[in-house]
């Protein structure tokens, strides 16, 4: 009797253990195991929407989408694998070892075998689907830049998201392996441009055959972005710039709309999507730095263009009048140091000095006004801080001042520094966009505009979202005197920009030659036209391009071609 009871209690214990085991599996590990079960039988085939298009102000396409055909295998059992792989590789003409390796990995998730198939390949692979139902050809929209290099710095390029961006953007629904924009509009407006991935989820049985569809989420296309760029002007500008290193900006002086913005050398954004790694790494290693947008991310010494700041400061502070003259003898001794002018100009008033870009006049005026006032007016005219442009990676440049020098280097400010500052040398750093914006102040008679490149997103006008032009408190006379000088630069036979006088539209502007030893100087030209009622501000910058004259030549070609095409 005793023995029977022992056996019975033993069995009861076994049953209790079984219940405990059941509890462990179903309740404690239940959620985990159910997840595994769902992974077993739920397959997801994603479908990409198309990224928003980027068009110019007239609706011409700059960045669109093309169709790429991808070969996707949804693993199923009972398929003659070797046979299938042989047939696939006959179509694609490459070794099938890779595919076999991927297939036999035993995954049950859909595998992308080949991207970017040609249409012909896609069609013939599509026919194989009859024999091998696991073959799927998926048509995916892929970003394409039909104009290749055109406006490449404005647009940016696309690539797989990096870790830094991922941590920043995770909260906005970005995931690893997402394709996001880098630089330019693609990065700045990625949130609007990006499509929402859709897809079909379906249940499969143990052999991977679809049983029923569980859900379908249609992909959502990205929103279109319209730029203020005019593709026709952009093409002219890029043609004129050619292979030279530099940047050209054309802007509407009243509302800050950028009509053309080019930086050279450039890159072909298509290369980044084609995963052409050798081309991409060459682009990044190139000493000419083709990936840098020189128009906004390059800070350079301003050269003579900075004289406008000195002139404005002096006229506003009433240190000089329209008729205050100084004698230029080719050089000026400040303290113990001798500062040169590039020529001997004789007696010069403010307009003459601007026309001839006389250094001695501005040394003297600069010393009269004082470094701090020059610094203040530079800031008023938009230098030394970002312009509020709506593309990323804008540099803010630098304008020295006695205080900043004291703080950063513990050195005193000498009159020689003031003299250097007066002609835009020394530590002055500006971006071509800042110069464009400064020139617009003289074109629109006293307003600092907010340069921008987006006109509308998804048909919604961005006008309200851009900052309104700010009034710079300059007296009308100041602007008039300076404008007279700027006009004279072109129209006066001795003006530094006289080469532009032959163009069939009245231009005003200022050249600049910024010393950049040991290499040759940077060439600047910035101006506006037509003079009476300005509609365009232009800034041409050539990195190590020689004297400002060369920039005038580029500007001349741009304006002439714009005239030819009736764009002015």
């Amino acid at each position: 009797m005793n023995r029977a009871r022992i056996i019975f209690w033993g069995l009861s214990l076994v049953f209790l253990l079984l219940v405990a085991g059941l509890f462990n599996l179903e309740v404690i590990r239940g959620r985990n195991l159910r997840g595994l079960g769902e992974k077993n039988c739920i397959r997801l085939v994603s479908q990409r929407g198309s990224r928003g298009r980027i068009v110019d102000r007239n609706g011409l396409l700059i960045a669109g989408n093309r169709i790429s055909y991808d070969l996707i295998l949804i693993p199923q059992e009972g398929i003659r694998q070797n046979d299938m792989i042989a047939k696939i590789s006959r179509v694609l003409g490459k070794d099938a070892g890779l595919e076999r390796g991927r297939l036999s990995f035993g995954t049950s998730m859909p595998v992308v075998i080949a991207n970017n198939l040609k249409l012909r390949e896609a069609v013939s692979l599509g026919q194989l689907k009859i024999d091998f139902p696991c073959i799927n050809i998926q048509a995916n929209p892929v970003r394409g830049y039909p104009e290749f290099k055109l406006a490449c710095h404005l647009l940016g390029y696309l690539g797989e998201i990096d870790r830094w961006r991922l941590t920043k953007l995770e909260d906005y629904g970005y995931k690893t392996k997402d394709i996001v924009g880098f630089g330019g509009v693609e990065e700045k407006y990625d949130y609007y441009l990006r499509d929402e991935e859709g897809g079909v989820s379906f249940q499969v049985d143990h052999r991977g055959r679809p049983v029923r569809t569980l859900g379908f989420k249609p992909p959502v296309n990205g929103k279109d972005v319209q730029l203020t760029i005019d593709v026709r002007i952009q093409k002219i500008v890029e043609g004129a710039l050619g292979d030279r290193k530099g940047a050209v900006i054309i802007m509407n002086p009243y509302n800050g709309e950028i009509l053309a913005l080019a930086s050279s050398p450039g890159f072909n954004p298509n290369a980044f999507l084609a995963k052409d790694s050798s081309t991409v790494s060459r682009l990044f290693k190139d000493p000419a730095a083709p990936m840098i947008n020189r128009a906004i991310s390059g800070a350079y010494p301003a050269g003579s263009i900075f004289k406008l700041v000195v002139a404005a400061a002096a006229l506003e502070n009433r240190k000089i009048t329209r008729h205050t003259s100084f004698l230029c003898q080719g050089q000026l001794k400040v303290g113990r140091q001798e500062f040169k002018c590039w020529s001997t100009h004789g007696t010069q008033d403010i307009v003459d000095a601007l026309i001839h870009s006389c250094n001695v006049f501005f040394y003297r005026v600069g010393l009269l006004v004082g470094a701090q006032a020059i610094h203040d007016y530079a800031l008023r005219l938009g230098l030394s801080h970002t312009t509020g442009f709506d593309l990323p990676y804008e540099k803010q440049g630098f304008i020295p001042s006695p205080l900043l020098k004291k703080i950063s280097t513990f050195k005193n400010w000498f009159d020689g520094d003031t003299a250097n500052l007066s002609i835009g040398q020394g530590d002055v750093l500006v971006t071509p966009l800042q110069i464009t914006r400064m020139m617009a102040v003289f074109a629109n008679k006293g307003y600092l505009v907010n340069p921008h490149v987006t006109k509308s997103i998804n048909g919604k006008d961005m006008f309200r979202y851009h900052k309104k032009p700010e009034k710079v408190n300059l007296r009308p006379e100041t602007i008039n005197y300076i404008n007279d000088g700027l006009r004279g630069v072109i129209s006066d036979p001795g003006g530094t920009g006289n080469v532009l006088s032959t163009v069939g539209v009245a231009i005003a502007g200022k050249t600049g030659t910024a010393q950049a030893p040991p290499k040759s100087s940077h060439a600047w030209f910035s101006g506006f036209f037509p003079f009476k009622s300005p509609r365009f501000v232009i800034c041409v910058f050539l990195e190590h391009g020689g004297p400002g004259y060369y920039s005038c030549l580029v500007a001349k070609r741009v304006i002439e071609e714009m005239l030819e095409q009736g764009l002015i």
Partner: protein
Amino acid sequence: MKNASLTILLIAVLICILSLLSIFSSTSQREGEIWQNIYQRQALWIGLGIMFFLIISNINYRRFWDWTYFLYLASLFFLLLVLLLGSVRLGAQRWLRFGWFNFQPSELAKLVMAIFLARYFSLKDESNVTLLSERFGVFRALIVPLFFIAIPMGLIIEQPDLGTGLIVLFIFIPMLYLANVKLKYLFVMLALIIFSTPFAWNFLRGYQKDRLMVFLNPNIDPLGAGYTIIQSKIAIGSGGFWGRGWLSGTQSQLRFLPEAHTDFIFASFSEEWGLLGGIVLLFLYYLLIRKGFLIAQRTRDQFGRLMAFGISLMLAIQVSINIAMNMGFAPIVGIPLPLMSYGGSSIFVTFIALGILANIDKSRAVF
């Protein structure tokens, strides 16, 4: 007291209803007529099984005393027949074709061995007073019965069906204990088994070694030998507390779980009925086995007593090994879950065994 046979039948039929529901569910997604009416076949087996139960429960169990040797020889004959001309399915030769019915002699052999051992250990001396088994020496207590069960066991293992073969051994050991054999012989027996295990490893077939290895760690071969156990655990775990509901278990419906209607029916049942259903099923089995033990303990006739123990043990061992294997607590062996798994032989033999049990309870009053 009179209702013991009714209680047994009631519990058995309840389990059978759960079996029909599970089989219907796990085969409902399959194409082909064979799969579509498989639950009808199971219903037929259950109906026939109940008939067997009613017949057997009205045959005095003492008759089995006389039939023991005949039954023993008959099952040996069938097992030999299987080896010679059995049909091969799932890589094993376990079945004999009788027209449209595939008979699995090893199922019958389990029951016959229980009867045989019951008879052997209930021999009495000339005066018919004391049980011999309490005074057996090592030869009569261990070697003779071991010899007799080793023959069918070897034949079953040779099929190959290691699980069923070992079940015979697992019935033998507690029967030894319950037959009041001296404890030292029992320890000898256990020591013998333990020491022979390393040698037995060499006699195992490749797939059996694989199964033992994946029992220890299913993830060494997740798509091969470990696949079944992983899928079975997933199926049970997906059930959660309430289960996914009848006809909605993805593991069995979409056939990720192999043998979802036979050996792994517990997993597919648990997936759809959850912890609640699993506990109810376990409780039903527990009641059935408890009933068997109660009957055995109340029976004073040693043959009836041991036979009732043997039948209860046979049920208990099969149920616990099958469910433990479903949950990954035991290596995978081809042992069906009595009354749940699809299969005529198992259903028939189980109902016959329950019929004997019912009769032992009924006939007790006679003595």
